[in-house]
């Protein structure tokens, strides 16, 4: 006999949304529905009894592991240390500034084809981009460049360590030869 309890526990852990009874039935198609329900109650009771940091809860029509509410201060503290990622818009804007600096906003927008006010503001707040100066042309536009923190985040000694487009293109091209005339006769 299979260890249904272990299987159900594994399924709950890996499910992206609260795991519904229907999904459990579909995976374990040879098991009685009442047995699934009993096993789930057993699991809930076990986690309750252990008084651990995790509990199994029935939520949104399914089952899910959650951290105990009283532990939320620590969980929140951990979230504070979670690295943020950049949105695609921010990443593209940052790439333009990094490779084309010193650059003004209009030039970034010319390349991206859309307004970049929001991503640019975010990058300034994250201190990845800074104001380098102003250009002495009508409107005196602000010039942007990257910061020391930018180098730190990307683990670069200086900007010349950035990979070039040619190097990226080289990775896209696989060398091949078709003819083997020369050797086939030897």
């Amino acid at each position, binding site marked *: 006999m299979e260890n249904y309890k272990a299987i159900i526990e594994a399924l709950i*852990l*890996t*499910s*992206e949304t*609260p795991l519904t009874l229907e999904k459990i039935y579909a995976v374990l198609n040879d098991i009685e529905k009442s047995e699934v329900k009993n096993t789930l109650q057993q699991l809930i009771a076990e986690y309750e009894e252990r008084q651990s940091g995790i509990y199994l809860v029935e939520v949104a029509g399914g089952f*899910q*592991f*959650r*951290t105990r509410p009283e532990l*939320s201060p620590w969980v929140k503290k951990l*979230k*504070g*240390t*979670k*690295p*943020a*990622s*950049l949105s695609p818009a921010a*990443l*593209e804007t940052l*790439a*333009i500034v990094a*490779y*084309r*600096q*010193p650059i003004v906003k209009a030039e970034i927008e010319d*390349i991206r*084809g859309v307004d970049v006010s929001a991503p640019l503001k975010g990058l300034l707040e*994250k201190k*990845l981009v800074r104001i*380098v*100066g*102003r*250009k*002495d042309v009508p409107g005196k536009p602000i*010039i942007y*460049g*990257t910061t020391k923190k930018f180098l730190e*985040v*990307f*683990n670069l000694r*200086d*900007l010349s360590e*950035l*990979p*070039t*487009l*040619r190097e*990226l*293109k080289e990775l896209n091209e*696989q*060398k*091949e*030869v*078709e003819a*083997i005339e*020369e*050797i*086939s006769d*030897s």
Partner: protein
Amino acid sequence: MADETTGYAIKLDIFEGPLDLLLYLIKKNEIDIYNIPVALVTEQYLEYLKIIKSLNLDLAGEYLVMASTLIHIKSKMLLPAPDELSEEEKEEDPRSELVRQLLEYQAFKEAATALQGRQLLERDVFTRSAPLDDDIEKATEDEDELIEVNVFELIDAFHRLVSRIDKKEYLKIDLEKMSLTDIINDVMERLNCEKNLTFEELLGEETDRRRIVYTFLAILELIKLKMIKAYQTSAFGVIRIFPAVES
């Protein structure tokens, strides 16, 4: 063309390259890798290349390079009889470099298989994949927030942009340009602090010729971009540079 994501390829891709083909021939003939009969192996190797050719399949250039290496070793082995050689020459088996390469490659092939045999995430073992609880918001907006992103993502993003807009002038990014940008950034940073500078002040103790040339080029570039202004007090006086717009 080989498709990296599927791992299937139409070219005779049971072999990962010439070394892989050689290892196969060695195994097939039950040959001692330290004592390869080069004539036999070369013959069979060329036979395989002919088959590939007859099937009209693309052949990586490396296969041809290996073919000529094999022929070269074969001819060297045919030359003088071993006992007529001095001790020193005897040690120099023409096959030794190839054997070293084969052993090294074989070791990595095995290492690759061993890696594949481990308990792989998302194949053998799985982790929690539910998104983080919605009710727990991020605690504080940290001033010195950690950011997780790598250089490859950056160049890849830039590449996507460039291919989208198809403006060739944006392709002109090379090490030289980025080195110049480094210095442009330095110059602007120093100008922000010190308001105005002479070329000599900018260079300071610098004696590296390359750095001096780059600094000069950076100033020319900044003047062209109308980001700085340069003033000379008299015909041969010092040139002083200022930010083009006072901050």
